[in-house]
């Protein structure tokens, strides 16, 4: 378990992490989300003691990172790819890490096989692609068979096959009751990987909840309705207190309405009571991307439209 209490980090007069408290539980994948510059990487560096916080503390299984004996046996961290000497081979890099932890060198060969680098392990890191470097970083994180994993943007630079592999790896590690804490800027990646989300913006906690709850809580539900008598229906729905947006009919289909403020069953009842034919009645769930944009609007550190967030509209051809 990872616990942060009141964690605060300033670089000069810039507040990177602002009194941040959260808890990462074992047995599930916890996604760490935030716009660029929100303080995700800084927070991870504070947790593993690379940077010192001005206030607050972070603990792993109740201990400060520096107080854990042979820490790689408890915590595996992937903080950035290419954080290796270009002239050193992947095997030598992992070997020195293993030696500091009293791990046998056969463990190095095991993790190299896990990440699929056994054939290039004795070559210098200089010639590795970003994806290969990322795999060395993942191998280093797995080296001590740790119960806690911190992965900062682990799918960066990986091909689709590699992304799928990391996704499954994180899920299987969580299924083994390990603590998996993974940051990403890819919202859709988190939607399919994370069970729980911690969202930060400008160094402050925005949300900590299950992925499902996050989407439900932070987005307005809308219902897609198709009917040959869309105009009549729109009037009836508005009279009942719903808000209607008329969508352009796509080729061959009847006119569509996007309704908010009324649930799908109620819309169905209204249509039935007025003998209006419905072709489609679909509750729309906002994607994680939209929910995230909505929630972090106003806390975007670097962005052209920092404080003027445009609401995301549901695409017309709603197939869900």
């Amino acid at each position, binding site marked *: 378990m990872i616990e942060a209490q009141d964690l605060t980090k300033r670089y000069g007069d810039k507040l990177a992490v602002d009194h941040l408290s959260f808890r990462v539980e074992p047995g599930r994948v916890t996604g760490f989300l935030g716009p660029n510059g929100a303080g995700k990487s800084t927070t991870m*560096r504070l947790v*593993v*003691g*690379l*940077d*010192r916080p001005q206030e607050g503390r972070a603990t792993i299984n109740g201990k400060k*990172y*520096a107080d*854990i*004996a*042979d*820490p*790689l*046996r408890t*915590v595996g*961290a992937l*903080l*950035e790819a*290419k*954080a*290796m*000497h*270009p*002239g*050193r*081979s992947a095997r*030598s*890099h992992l*070997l*020195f*890490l293993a*030696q*500091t*932890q*009293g*791990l*046998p060198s056969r*463990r190095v060969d*095991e993790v190299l*096989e*896990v*990440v*699929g*680098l056994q*054939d*290039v392990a004795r*070559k210098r890191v200089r*010639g590795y*692609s970003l994806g*290969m470097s990322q*795999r060395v970083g993942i191998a280093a994180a797995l080296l*001590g*068979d740790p119960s806690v994993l911190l992965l900062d943007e682990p799918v960066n630079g990986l*091909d689709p*096959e*590699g992304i*799928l*592999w990391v996704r499954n*790896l994180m899920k299987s590690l969580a299924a*083994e009751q390990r603590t998996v804490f993974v940051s990403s800027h890819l919202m859709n990646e988190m939607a399919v990987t994370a069970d729980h989300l911690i969202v930060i913006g400008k160094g402050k906690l925005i949300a900590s909840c299950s992925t499902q709850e996050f989407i439900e809580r932070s987005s307005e539900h809308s219902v897609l309705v198709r009917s040959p008598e869309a105009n009549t229906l729109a009037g009836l729905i508005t009279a009942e207190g719903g808000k209607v947006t008329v969508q352009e009919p796509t080729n061959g289909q009847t006119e569509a309405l996007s309704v908010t403020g009324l649930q799908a069953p109620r819309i169905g009842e209204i249509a039935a009571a007025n003998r209006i034919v419905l072709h489609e009645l679909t509750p729309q769930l906002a994607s994680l991307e939209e929910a995230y944009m909505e929630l972090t609007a106003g806390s975007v550190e670097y962005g052209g439209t920092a404080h003027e967030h445009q609401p995301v509209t549901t695409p017309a051809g709603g197939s869900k």
Partner: protein
Amino acid sequence: MTSTVSPAAPATAPVPLPAAHRAPFVGDLLGEWTKIRSVRSTIWTLIIFVVVSLGLTALLTWLTLNNLSHGRHGSAASGLVTDPVSFILGTGLGLGQLAICVLGALVITAEYSSGTIRASLLAVPRRYPMFLAKALVFAVLVFVVAQIVAFVSYFIGAALVNNHVITNSFFVAHHTINVHHKITVSLSQPGVLRSVFGAGLYLTVLGLFALAIGGLIRHTAGAITAVIGMVLVIFPLAGLLPSSWGAHVHAYLPTVAGQLITADKHQSGQLLSPWQGFGIFCAWTALLLIVSVFLLDRRDA
């Protein structure tokens, strides 16, 4: 380089990993040894150190002996006559020491430039033991190589000097008189063994001095420039400072004091004994190492 395939092996250790049966610091030392020997820059810097030191010792000693025989007496030649051991140890190692400065700085700055420092600190989060292990492994490596090079340099130089007969011709009253004489050096002469062993010690502490500067500056080019600038320019130039306080300042500067241990003869006006000088150099280096590790502990990695 081929693309990698998705692995079939499970991420979990197939058998529980064995507990570490060793003192934690032993692991730190092993890790640092793997780090220093697994990059080519270490090997290349040491090769340059060996080749430059031995090659220049042989070349300059041989050239100077020939000059003596042909009656060309420069200051170098007179140095070889009056203090042959200092001459032998001063020529090749005087330039070879720059390779040790580079290696010392590189051992720590390369960790920062490559980002390896973060992997190192994740593995050994307590920064004092990490720094101590690094300094210790580096010092032992340099000590072994430098002692070998110092002794081989001495033996090359001594063999050239001892086997060379210097012939000076004088023309007196219509007669040419040839005067033959030999310079002899031997490890049994007073101070000679201490000078040769001292040269290895000096180079070891010089390496640590450079490592400390590297830890302070954390930039390869900056650290190397700073160390070499001090050793080659700033410290020697301080000898030009006026009056007796200038002479005192100069005598107590790190490498000026440290090099006293590599000289077998006491120079006139020398303020410190060889071991006192070496002690001063060690004190400077210890101070810089302490500041360096203190800042390592305080600064974000």
